[in-house]
Structures are given as structure tokens and as C-alpha cells.
């Protein structure tokens, strides 16, 4: 079967709408479980962890678009990337909010101390800060205004991926299985870019 390079506009809209709704399911799940008081023995931890892992998941999916597009030739995938990246930001905001609100109850003194003293909090917070300019410059107008600089700025996403995976790695008490899986996927996705870059340079 030939993979389509382009999609007709109506089909692309259907795909986009479907993904838009699917990407809301992790949040919907929390809301449903929350109303049914089914978030387990430690609901606050459950909500924070869920939003955190979904942030990482959407980051990795976003980083997967370019390799997938290049390998399959499905160029239309590119038009999904902004939405997926914004969903990573969306879940990062929920993750951050659930930390400052549900975990710390806006105790800013404790939050500042937590960020400064604990390296896993620090790298997570740094990743969150880096996401903000990317979300802010995600509109078409900003892309036009920034021109070539837009791409340079958005390379920050590689750093964000590394910081995010490190955040998970450093918070785990002992069993590193889950952070290692996220880390391995990240290395694969960044490694692909490095490889294609090296190939391009050697050809040129």
C-alpha cells in the first residue's frame, strides 16, 4: 500500500479533530476517576504523575513526527505537530498546576525551596519554563515574525525532552524501568536527527 504524501483537506481536518479529541482522554479520565473517587489511596500523587507522564508522552510523540514523516514520506504529518506540541504544553501546565496547587497549596516559600534544593524538581521546572516560549510562538503570525529564528528557538524542544526525561529519572526511588523506557525512546528520536545531520554533512 502506498502511503499518502498529502491528504485531501477534508480528510486532514477529520484526522486533526480525531487527534484533538483523543488527546483530551487522559484529562477526561482524571475527571471521571475524580468524580467517582477512584483515584486510589493517594489521589494527589496520581493526578501529578498522570499529567507528568502524559506531558512526556506528548513530547515524544511530537518529536516523533519528523522522523516518521521522513521515513514514510507522509508529509501531511507535519500539520499535526503544532497541536501535539501544544498538548505537551497543556499537560505540562496541568502537571505544574497540580504540583503548586494540590501538592504545595501555593506555599511559595516551600515551592522556591523545593526547586532550589531538589535537582529533580529543578530540571522539571526548567523544562516547564523552556516550554513557555515555544507555546507562545506557536502561532502562524509568530512563525512569520520570527522567520529563520523560529526554528532556532524551537530546537529548545530537544533540551526540554532531555530535561523532562531526567526529571522522571531523578525522582524515581529505585525501579528505573519506566524512566528508562521514556529515555530510550528519546535517545532514539534524537539519535535519528543526529544521524541524518551527519549524513547530510558528509554528502555536502
Amino acid at each position: 500500500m502506498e502511503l499518502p504524501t498529502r491528504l485531501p483537506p477534508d480528510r486532514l481536518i477529520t484526522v486533526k479533530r480525531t487527534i484533538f479529541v483523543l488527546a483530551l482522554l487522559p484529562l477526561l479520565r482524571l475527571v471521571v476517576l475524580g468524580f467517582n473517587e477512584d483515584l486510589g489511596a493517594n489521589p494527589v500523587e496520581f493526578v501529578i504523575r498522570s499529567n507528568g507522564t502524559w506531558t512526556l508522552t506528548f513530547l515524544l510523540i511530537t518529536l516523533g513526527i519528523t522522523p516518521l514523516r521522513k521515513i514514510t514520506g507522509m508529509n501531511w504529518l507535519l500539520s499535526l505537530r503544532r497541536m501535539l506540541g501544544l498538548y505537551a504544553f497543556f499537560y505540562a501546565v496541568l502537571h505544574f498546576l497540580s504540583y503548586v496547587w494540590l501538592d504545595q497549596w501555593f506555599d511559595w516559600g516551600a515551592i522556591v525551596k523545593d526547586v532550589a534544593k531538589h535537582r529533580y524538581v529543578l530540571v522539571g521546572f526548567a523544562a516547564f519554563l523552556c516550554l513557555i516560549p515555544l507555546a507562545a510562538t506557536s502561532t502562524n503570525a509568530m512563525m512569520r515574525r520570527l522567520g529563520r529564528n523560529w526554528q532556532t528557538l524551537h530546537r529548545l524542544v530537544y533540551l526540554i525532552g532531555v530535561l523532562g526525561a531526567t526529571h522522571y529519572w531523578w525522582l524515581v526511588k529505585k525501579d528505573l524501568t519506566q524512566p528508562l523506557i521514556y529515555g530510550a525512546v528519546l535517545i532514539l528520536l534524537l539519535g535519528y536527527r543526529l544521524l541524518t545531520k551527519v549524513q547530510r554533512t558528509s554528502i555536502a
Partner: protein
Amino acid sequence: MQTAGLGLIASAGLASGLVQAANVQPQARRKLAPIVKGPYATDEKPTPYADVTTYNNFYEFGTDKSDPSRNAGTIRTRPWTVSVEGDVKRAKRISLDDLLKLAPLEERIYRMRCVEGWSMVIPWVGFPLARLIEWAEPTGNARYVEFISLADPDQMPGVRVPVLDWPYTEGLRLDEARHPLAILAVGLYGETLPDQNGAPLRLVVPWKYGFKGIKSIVSLRFTEKMPVSSWMRANSREYGFYSNVNPEVDHPRWSQATERRIGEGGLFNRRRKTLMFNGYADQVGQLYAGMDLRKYF
């Protein structure tokens, strides 16, 4: 999420354990009697039974908090014997039934503070560890007690994964072990100990972080030298021998100043301040008089 979680666990080598666990009969809940009211009871509200028995750290059955309640049914808790070894006059094996004759069962309602920053209030059923020590008659050489858990890969799927150096071991100084707060628990909520909570016999030392409360104990070894616990072996920078609850000494990676009480307030459950020695400073403070608790964490 559930499927993804299962996939990850399977990749960690636990698949067969889960399949086995699916065939396990639900545990029979059996009333323990008679039980006398023991001292030191907190009047705080006990954590609901459902939370105490589904939110567990018992890595022998998997590292997720929900793993033990799903997988622990494979452990065979009868017959059960405990081997008493080392610098004691009575170095021998004692059956669980004989252990239970050493002292009447008491209810002890204790706070439990996990090193991860959460806490519970648990109505344990057990007897003072001191009674077993009296029975064993340590010699003059004995200064420490080392505890050892069961580590049978056939009964404990998590043991097939080298997440810790099995068997799980813990230790106490002899005077800590003799302290009247320290108990060996065989039940909670007036019933036999659920498998996921460390059946049939576990240590409870409420002024220390929860991981000191070693589960499914098969051996007590009296020694002259300080034993090295599993968590010390895993990361000696983060976990020390004493592991007393101390809000002023942070875990290297997170704060210990506050804790979240499980089973209270749902999503809007605010953290509370952690108390020195988990609120048992009046009882155990003198054990550590003059010690630098930052150094001996």
C-alpha cells in the same frame, strides 16, 4: 494506561507472576482473638482498610504500589518458621504458632511514615519484639539484630527482578529492638495480616521510616557488627542504618518536612508537618541522646 502498565511490567520480567496471580483465590480474612488493647495508641483516625491494603511498598511483588495487593496471594504463609541465629543462647527455628505463645496479642494503633512523604494510621495486631528477644537470650556479644525476609522467586514474582539485592534485610540496634514500641505484627484491623502487608509476620517500628518495617520475616540474626540493610546496599547516600523519621534531615532528593496522610480529603488533602521521630520523640528520644542525627540518618 492499564494495558501500557501491564506491558511495562511484563517487560520487567513479571509477566508469569501476574498470570499466576490471576489464578490465586482471594485471601480469606480471619479474625484474630483474643486481642488486648496495647499502649501508645494514637487517637488519630485510622486509615481506611482499603487504602492500607492496596497502597503498599513490597517490591518482592512488584514496584508499583498496587502490585502487592494484586500479586501477593502467591505467598504461602503456613506453615511458617522463623530461624533465630547468631549470638543467642537459643539459636533455633521457631514456628509461627510457638511465636504466638510468647506473648498475648495486642492492638497497637500507630502512625506509619513512609520515606516517600506519605503516612497512614494503622491498627496493628502484634506483640513486643522484646518478648522474642527475651526468649532467644542474646549473649553478651549481641549488639544488633538483623532481620531477613523470605525471597522465593516461586512465591514472589518481584524477586526475579534484581531491583534490590534479595533477600530484603533490615537491622536494629539491640536497644532499639527491645524498645516497647517495637512490635512484630501478625495482623491489622483485628484480622490476620493481609499478604501484601507482610504476612505472616512483619516488623513495626513506628518512629522509623516505613521501609524499616521488614515484611514476611524468616530469620533474625543477632550480631556484634552493624548489619547492612538492603536499602543501604542499594544507595548508602540516601538510606542510612537508623532511618529515624526526622523532618529536619531531608532525603537527598526530596524534603522530609511534610507528609500527606493517606485516605483523608481526597484531591484536596493538604500536607501536614512531619513530627520528630514520627511523634514518638518522648518515647524513643533517649535512645539517640548525644548522637548527630545528620550523620547517623
